């Protein structure tokens, strides 16, 4: 069953007629994901690769009974798309969009909570349960089915580690990209808890980076509540303080959020921390 998504997830793509949305919807379908439809305001009634396109999420959910939605629309429209999905009763909303203003995300996250919807992202590569389904842009080639759960703030770093695991013969239960923004819907701890409770996950790889304190909170959780072994990598040891390293959330601010303090906290919690992402497989063996 893995976590969050499987072969039975019914997925809508918000922005399916766009260039990005359409491209990834096709790859998701090719992977075996049940894409039951899409939403683009003003294009309701059209078809996309045999799936119906709707004007609104309410209409799409009413017809398709989708439980999951992928948001691929630009930053100006993404917060509204997130809230529209939550309002339509979608339980799992995955938002890829980068560059959404933090103020908009604070409102969207609060709204999702009030509607009981789980939001993953924004600014994330999505979720993939190898061999079953993928919702997002994680390339199919980076993972085989298995029993290691992967949770990460970053896209390509995740591909790098997934690929190294695959080459070492280690499979993955589910990959969750939680995103590199300061305000996100689902945190490391949320995902660690899901992996801890998932019978198909035996070990976990956590890929963090500088900025914020989510990895420190995760270390607390690992220490106090986790029985499964955790291997970790923290990016940004060589990053200077006060500079934002690409991701909006990746900044060491006022002495807080450095890689060293996160590595120390994770090691103290019993996680095995790699200084090279290609060493992660050896820590999981």
């Amino acid at each position, binding site marked *: 069953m893995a976590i969050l998504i499987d072969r039975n997830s019914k997925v809508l793509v918000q922005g399916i007629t766009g260039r990005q949305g359409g491209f990834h919807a096709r790859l998701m379908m090719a992977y075996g994901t049940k894409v039951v439809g899409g939403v683009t305001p003003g294009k309701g009634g059209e078809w996309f690769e045999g799936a119906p396109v709707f004007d609104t999420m309410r209409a799409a959910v009413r017809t398709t009974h989708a439980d999951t939605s992928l948001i691929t629309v630009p930053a100006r429209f993404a917060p509204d798309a997130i809230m529209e999905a939550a309002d339509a009763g979608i339980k799992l909303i995955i938002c890829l969009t980068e560059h959404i203003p933090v103020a908009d995300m604070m409102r969207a996250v609060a709204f999702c909570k009030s509607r009981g919807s789980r939001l993953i992202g924004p600014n994330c590569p999505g979720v993939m349960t190898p061999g079953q389904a993928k919702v997002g842009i994680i390339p199919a080639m980076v993972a085989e089915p298995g029993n290691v759960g992967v949770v990460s703030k970053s896209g390509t*770093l995740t591909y790098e580690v997934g690929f190294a695991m695959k080459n070492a013969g280690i499979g993955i239960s589910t990959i969750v990209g939680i995103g590199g923004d300061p305000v996100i819907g689902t945190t490391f701890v949320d995902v660690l808890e899901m992996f801890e409770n998932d019978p198909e996950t035996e070990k976990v790889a956590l890929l963090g980076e500088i900025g914020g304190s989510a990895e420190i909170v995760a270390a607390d959780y690992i220490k106090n509540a986790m029985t499964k072994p955790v291997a970790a990598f923290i990016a940004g040891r060589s990053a200077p303080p006060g500079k934002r390293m690409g991701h909006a959330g990746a900044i060491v601010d006022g002495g807080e959020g450095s890689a060293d303090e996160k590595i120390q906290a994770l090691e103290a919690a019993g996680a095995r921390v790699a200084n090279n992402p290609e060493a992660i497989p050896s820590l999981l063996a």
Partner: protein
Amino acid sequence: MKLHEYQSKFLFRDFGIPIPAGQVAKTPAEARAIASQLGAPVVIKAQVHVGGRGKAGGVKLARDADEAHRYAADILGMEIKGLVVQQVLVDPAADIQQEIYLAITNDRSAGMPLIMSSIEGGMDIEELNRSRPEAIIRERIDPILGLNDFQTTHIASAMGMPRAHWRSFGSILRSLYRCYSESDAELAEINPLVITGGGELLAVDGKVIIDDNALYRQPKLAVQRDASGEPESESLAREAGISYIKLDGQIGCMVNGAGLAMTTMDMTKLYGDADNIGPANFLDIGGGASPAQVAAALRIILSDDKVRCVLINIFGGITRCDEVAAGILTACSEVKPNVPMVIRLQGTNASEGNAIISQAQIANIISAQTLTQAAQLAVAAAKERA
């Protein structure tokens, strides 16, 4: 995007927060004229994007207009932590009875705005947070509801604000929240908020940082950017839509994705630190980079004359390695790099990409299979040319 003190305070004034009647001077003569007009004493304050300007001698109290001229001459052109002072704020000296700290920022773990306030203002808030965290009152704001009156009363009461000032404090706090919210600020800070001898509240110093991702809807603030303190290469990169930060090392890095870009930097340091070799920059070319973008990135990396070697690390997901390889060839023919380049292409269409590179037979190009190998080769190449 950081605003200068004067920009921050003028923004506060637009939202109804009382500030001193100061003006900005770019020459000593202008400072003298402003001082005469305001009436002495005045404070001359360097406007630079670094902290600790007071300790560096960038803030001085002038007793008359001549002194204002002299101090402005001292401060203008002064270098503070590598930044040259190009303008000063000339403010009337405030009659300070009490200094208060008041700020609104994003609480990223709670996903809510956070008000921080303290009756012990004036000093460095990080220092106060370490020494006496209980002296800072923290109040989170529901992002859907906004700031309520009961919260302003709670804050005033909990911080020990004298009751006589509750009304004006509440009004300033509501204005600051509007300013924070309507300006898409990630920080709106008044330090100090002063209670004057006359019993008025006055925002004597201010700092505002605007969310870069919201600048598209803040045109009046976006034009206030002062890029004079940033390296030219960073300005060029911003215009090209490339995420780039200049660092001090010798290995120029070109990577797709922010997390992997940081990791690649870390790897050069991991293998090069013993020989004082490390990353020359952070650079994320983004997803699906075009040949033009790869060329622009290479040009920016090579504009740093400390660079002894370029390390290109691409893990193709959406980005296709064959397209990146074509981009590298175009870039090389335009930019003609005179340093070795270690290229590691992995993921989508990697074998096609590597074939394009090897067939082109460009001197100085070294291919690598893994990230570890790429970092080690780049360090070795940089060491050879050190």
